[in-house]
């Protein structure tokens, strides 16, 4: 059937060659046979014959047609290019994923990140301590040359101490105002003159528990670990509070008992204590035991805590402490927090139909006074709801949660609260 197959493949070129009479008799016979077998070729042959009879240049016509075809393919291709659904979906999904991961890191990874920073910080300080160690050793020996025996004592008693001395002196140069102690140059003289100082710190290392009693440090050396406990106003430990050395990135975090430990801090430096839901506090390092540090609750941060942090059990416990404990801040806060209060009010107003006349985009503008005993009084609505409905709102507020009253200088005082509540 090869011949049969070949019949279907007669091209315009072959036909043209046949028509021109350049083909041999045998070739002509082949073409004729194919023309008989295929109507397409026969029709085309007729057309080509007529074209050549009218002396029309087919190759010029073909060039023109090829250009038109190309142009047609390119223009329409752009217009009708269909992006398959899965491609659009995948683009949308990847954008969503991107934002999702971003939000995840912003809201949930904060703790881990600080932890990670802590760790790298620790390792960094260790390595620098080791490298510095050798140099300082020599230096101390060199300085103490006039009294070689004392120098040896210093070095052997606490090589780490001598290293820390160096650290302290550099830091002290940076923040002279924070230091109780003298400047860098003086200190070196100090060391030479008062070799007793390192010995005292060596004692501290030997009996760290004995150091609980206030030890007055006469030189600027650092003791290895400072510790303290972070508590709230109810003496409950604050878990996960971050203690950081001011103007550096050295940080520590409190454990489940609210206890933190921080290394390589010198007396006179300032520590910052931050905890979610509490006002930040600064403390000046006085001795190794930093004692109990109390943080006051930050009412404005409460809502945020409730919304974002419900991850760990520890956090939940923290939330409860926050909500149960009375915030000592200036403005009145509803017991249970604002968002719970809003929800209560919204639900009770909706169920009584008090806000049925309110346009759903308008917030309910509420004013009330919180008495020192925590009861709301003088409830007023700035919206025009009608007498009956206004009364319903007033009752809902009065029967609602109690309030932590406003405080001024620690005293409970009466204060007016304004609140705009969206009903949506």
């Amino acid at each position, binding site marked *: *059937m090869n011949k*049969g197959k070949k*019949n*279907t493949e007669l*091209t*315009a*070129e072959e*036909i043209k060659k046949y028509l021109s009479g350049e083909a041999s*008799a*045998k070739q*002509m*016979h082949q073409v*004729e*046979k194919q023309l*008989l*077998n*295929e*109507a*397409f*070729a026969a*029709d*085309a*042959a*007729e*057309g*080509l014959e*007529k*074209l050549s009879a009218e002396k*029309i240049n*087919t190759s010029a*016509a*073909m060039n*023109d*047609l*090829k250009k*038109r*075809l*190309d142009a*047609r*393919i390119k223009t*329409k*291709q752009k217009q*009708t*290019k*269909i992006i398959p659904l899965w491609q659009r979906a995948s683009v949308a999904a990847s954008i969503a994923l991107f934002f999702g991961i971003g939000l995840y890191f912003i809201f949930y990874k904060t703790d881990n990140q600080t932890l990670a920073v802590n760790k790298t910080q620790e390792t960094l300080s260790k390595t620098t301590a080791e490298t510095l160690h050798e140099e300082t050793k020599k230096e101390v020996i060199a300085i103490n040359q006039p009294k070689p025996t004392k120098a040896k004592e210093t070095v052997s008693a606490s090589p780490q101490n001598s290293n820390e001395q160096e650290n302290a002196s550099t830091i002290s140069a940076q923040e002279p105002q924070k230091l109780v102690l003298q400047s860098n140059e003086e200190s070196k003289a100090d060391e030479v003159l008062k070799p007793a100082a390192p010995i005292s710190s060596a004692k501290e290392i030997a009996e760290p528990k004995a150091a609980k009693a206030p030890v007055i440090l006469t030189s600027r050396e650092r003791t290895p670990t400072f510790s303290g406990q972070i508590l709230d106003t109810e003496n409950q430990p604050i878990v996960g509070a971050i203690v950081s050395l001011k103007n550096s990135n050295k940080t520590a975090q409190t454990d489940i008992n609210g206890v933190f430990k921080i290394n390589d801090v010198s007396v006179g430096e300032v520590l910052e204590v931050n905890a979610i839901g509490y006002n930040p506090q600064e403390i000046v390092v006085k001795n190794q035991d930093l004692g109990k540090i109390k943080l006051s609750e930050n009412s404005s941060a409460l809502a945020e805590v409730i919304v974002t942090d419900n991850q760990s059990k520890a956090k939940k416990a923290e939330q409860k402490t926050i909500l149960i404990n009375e915030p000592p801040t200036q403005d009145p806060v509803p017991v249970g927090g604002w968002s719970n209060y809003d929800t209560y009010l919204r639900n009770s107003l909706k169920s009584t139909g008090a806000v049925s006349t309110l346009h759903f985009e308008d917030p309910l503008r509420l004013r009330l006074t919180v008495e020192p005993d925590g009861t709301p009084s003088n409830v007023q609505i700035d919206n025009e709801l009608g007498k009956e409905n206004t009364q319903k709102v007033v009752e809902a507020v009065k029967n609602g949660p109690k309030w932590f009253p406003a405080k001024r200088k620690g005293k409970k005082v009466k204060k007016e609260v304004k609140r705009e509540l969206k009903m949506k």
Partner: protein
Amino acid sequence: MFFKRFSKPKPTTDAEYLAAYQATGNLELLGELYERYMEMVFAVCFKYLRDEDESKDAVMQIFEELVVKLRTHSVENFRSWLHSVARNHCLMHLRSNRLQTEGVDFFEDGSVENEPFEHQSDEPFELEQNLSKMTDCLETLSDEQRTSIRLFYLEEKCYKEITDLTGYDLNKVKSYIQNGKRNLKICIEKKHE
């Protein structure tokens, strides 16, 4: 589209081109395929339309038909299908223009509807293989047809040679062979029944 272009080898046969176009809708593929037959289509159009520019336009319009039809139609023999499409397009064009071109009388005999599908068979009628058995049928042909058929199919002469040998007119030889072939086919098909 980008990946498909790389994951699949470039089509070579008509069927591969058709499958690839049907799968992707890529006009470049269809364009490549169409270019193979464009001159033939042009010639066919010229045969009917007798005008160069009109034929060119027809070539482009036929391409538009393919763009739509080949997305959904499965075509087994593209060549003969394309011929049908081209032919029908030209005949419809002529009909809509109410043009009476010289020597074309297909409107009267209803060829527009019937003829396009006349040559659809994939296997052309193989006269040579049947000829020896068909002596009976050969006898039914006229002398001119029989002579021309014998010379053409058995002695493999071309039209020109047959003209020289027999003294018949070239166009007459053509029609003798065409008609003789058709008559033989009908005769053989009758005998098979």
